[in-house]
């Protein structure tokens, strides 16, 4: 397939433009980093070369006819030729029919493989939300990057907290929508260690183009070590550092900056114990209870000037983790008052 790809006419013609611009080894398709990639690329190339053959045939005939049979003063009329030919017409209905049957069959075969995970696959839960990915490993650890062992089948059990998202890993040739209210599944087997792009492929609003992550493929032994280490990294850190890590890894950073700039949600810089006006006209002091409420029931009290886009983190963040986040927000500074007024 590789040589066939390289020989493609357009690739040759425009190699100057494209070749230097990307690390991709193939003109049409990205790197092949899962066991599906070979099969999918084979079907892709099969369709590509059949299509190319027919396209060149059609355009060549068209150009030849236009030149050969152009209207000239000495040749104002068409030559006599039949206006239909049943045998010919059946032939050019029949041949494409056989070819597309093959295309269907190859594509179907590949798809069945993609939709049939092996029983012993390593399972990771995925939650998508505007606009972050959360990958939950069997030991309860959650990360915003997808770490997987190489050469082992991995099964993702996925759902969304808000609208439809789609998990897409181009180098693995896999894509599956994540639908709120139900679980969708996909599986793959990564071939080689490395870092690969992971995109959201279903339009999900303002931050759709920012909903990017990475798949990190590790050697199985390295993966096991990483997971052990990662599983209790929070406990080894001081609380505000643990909170900082969570803010980054659980997708909070997508909407809540720590540099004072308002994003989709308010910044977290310098808000501790500040009093803010809410959209319903009331005021609220940013304290432990307000932060906890905003994480678990984001729509309850919204700061003036913002529209709520945040899904709940109930069941995603533990009480302990919420504590770390509070410690982090506290560390970002705010009002000098040390206690909010008694209610």
């Amino acid at each position, binding site marked *: 397939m590789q040589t066939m790809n390289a020989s493609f006419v357009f690739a040759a013609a425009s190699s100057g*433009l*494209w070749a230097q*611009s990307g690390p991709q080894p193939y*003109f*049409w398709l990205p790197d092949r980093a899962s066991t*599906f990639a070979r099969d*999918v690329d084979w079907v*892709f190339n099969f*369709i*590509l070369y059949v299509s190319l053959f027919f*396209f060149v045939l*059609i*355009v060549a*005939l*068209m150009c030849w*006819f*236009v030149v050969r*049979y152009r*209207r000239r003063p000495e040749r*104002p*009329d*068409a*030559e006599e*030729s039949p*206006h*239909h030919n049943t045998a010919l*017409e059946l032939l*050019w*209905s029949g041949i*494409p029919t056989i070819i*597309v*049957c093959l*295309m*269907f069959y*190859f*594509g*179907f075969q*590949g*798809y069945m*493989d993609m939709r049939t995970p092996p029983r012993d696959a390593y399972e990771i839960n995925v939650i998508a939300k505007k606009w972050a990915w959360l990958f939950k490993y069997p030991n309860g650890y959650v990360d915003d990057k997808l770490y997987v062992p190489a050469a082992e089948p991995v099964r993702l059990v996925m759902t969304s907290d808000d*609208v439809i998202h*789609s998990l*897409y890993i*181009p180098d693995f*040739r896999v894509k*599956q*929508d994540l*639908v709120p*209210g139900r679980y*969708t599944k996909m599986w793959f087997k990564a071939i080689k260690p490395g870092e690969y*792009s992971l995109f*959201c*492929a*279903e*339009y*999900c*609003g303002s931050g759709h*183009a*920012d909903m*990017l992550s990475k798949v990190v493929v590790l050697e199985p032994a390295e993966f096991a070590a990483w997971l052990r280490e990662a599983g209790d990294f929070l406990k080894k850190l001081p609380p505000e550092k643990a909170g900082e890590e969570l803010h980054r890894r659980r997708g909070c950073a997508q909407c809540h900056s720590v540099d004072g700039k308002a994003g989709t949600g308010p910044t977290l810089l310098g808000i501790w114990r500040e009093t803010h006006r809410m959209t319903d006209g009331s005021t609220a002091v940013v304290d432990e209870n307000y932060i906890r409420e905003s994480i678990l029931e984001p729509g309850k009290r919204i700061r003036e000037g913002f529209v709520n886009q945040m899904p709940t983190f109930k069941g995603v963040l533990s009480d302990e983790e919420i504590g770390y986040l509070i410690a982090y927000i506290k560390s970002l500074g705010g009002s000098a008052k040390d206690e909010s007024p008694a209610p």
Partner: protein
Amino acid sequence: MSEIVAESHGNAENYLTARRGLLSWLFTLDHKRIGVMYLASILAFFLLGGVFALLVRTELISPGRTIMGRDMYNHMFTLHGAVMVFLFIIPGIPAALGNFVLPIMLGAKDVAFPRLNLASLYMFWGGAIFFVLVLVTGGLETGWTFYTPYSTTTGQSSVVAAVVGAFILGFSSIFTAVNFIATVHTMRPAAMGWFKMPLFVWALYATAIIQLLATPVLGITLLLLALERLFGIGFFDPALNGDPILFQHFFWFYSHPAVYIMILPGMGITSEIVSVFSRKHIFGYRFIAYSSIAIALFGFLVWGHHMFVSGQTRLASMIFSALTFSVSIPSAIKVFNWLSTLYKGSISLETPMCYALMFIFLFGIGGLTGLFLGSLSTDVHLTDTYFIVAHFHYTMMGSTVIAFIAGIHYWWPKITGKMYSDAWGKFTALLLFIGFNLTFFPQFVIGSRGMPRRYYDYEKMLPAHPDFHTGHWVSSVGSYLVGAAFLLMAGYLFYSIVAGRPAPRNPFGGAGLEWQTSSPPPVENFTSPPVVGDPYDYSKLRYDPRSNEYVRVA
């Protein structure tokens, strides 16, 4: 011969000059005037949708923010899609060109229900008003597909206004469809059997069947969507115990057949033009006619191919994939028939023919790239990337819009009574061809390499995918050429109205009935009953250099 020539010049009164004043247009029952009003309205929305497209392309020409923020971008790509689909391309060929030529091609005085025809135009304007309302109120950033639960929960959009607009436009579509079906069934002259009809009429007939059967489903779906959004009745949102996948099934049950509503009339125009400018009988008339009907029927059974990664069952995906491939066959048949029509013809490359040949080229690419998407395992990789964007622009714009333009150039002398500059026409066609391919071909490449669609930005992807910038840059530059070509076209077409040479009765040598009446036609279409014959028999037509037109000889 001399008698016919004399008549065509002696007939001063035509549908444009018969009555004057705004009211004579607004209350007209003349299908030609209604067609012209449709044409003007549709072209205005084409301009609007085109401006949105250029804004989208300009934003993507460089990484990071170029001219607008991410929310504005989301509004722009949605409005581009919604305006182009609902207000331009679906009504485009049938309601504008079809309305004008269908009754004349059948030798009739008007469509079967002239009042319904006018009502359809008013419905179109009514729906359009709601879209304008969307523009000035909240905008729309759901994508033209209105996927739930995004569309039922977003706070940034005038979803209900857009949905009501599309609902009303659906009625406009249904009215036109009913009218065309009745017209084709009842208004043909006695001598014109089903298989003596021009293929454009067959195409419009097949299109009308789809419009009539599929549009109500869209109406119902949009109504449910509006009820959910307004009153919180749960149909699609899982938070209200609805099912978001159900919306996709309902939506594509209309919107997939709708792509055949878009392409079939374009194929019909191509069949007419290829034959006329080759001066040769269309090859395989019956196969082309039947393939239009086959496409219309198969088109209803393939909607699930939009949903291979949605979470629908493996069985459903398998069935939809197999059925999808079956639609490719009638399309292939048409292409081979057009090629065979060229064989041994007397081919003249006037502007309409240039566009018809461009259609065959671009539809070739659009159709063949559909095979990658019908095949299950490759679709998983390619769906929701720029590969899809490129594919449907090759079919909708490269094919339908190009055929629409071919049709405008072909019937322009008949509609306006004026000739445009053929040299400018050809030059513009070339510019458009180059610009179009520059715009959309690179999108196949970045798409198959993994660039998802509907992305405001690709800056963060650049370290791993620097080629995305190359593709977007070339694409945006190409889009400016396309914009320039359309401006040029508007220029010379408008100039022809003001200062063009008067059009003769039959400037291109067409054998259809529309070429037997004067340009522009009188109010009643024909002053004497037209002679019905084979619409693709050119043997009796001779070019007369004195009057620059083709005349019938015994």
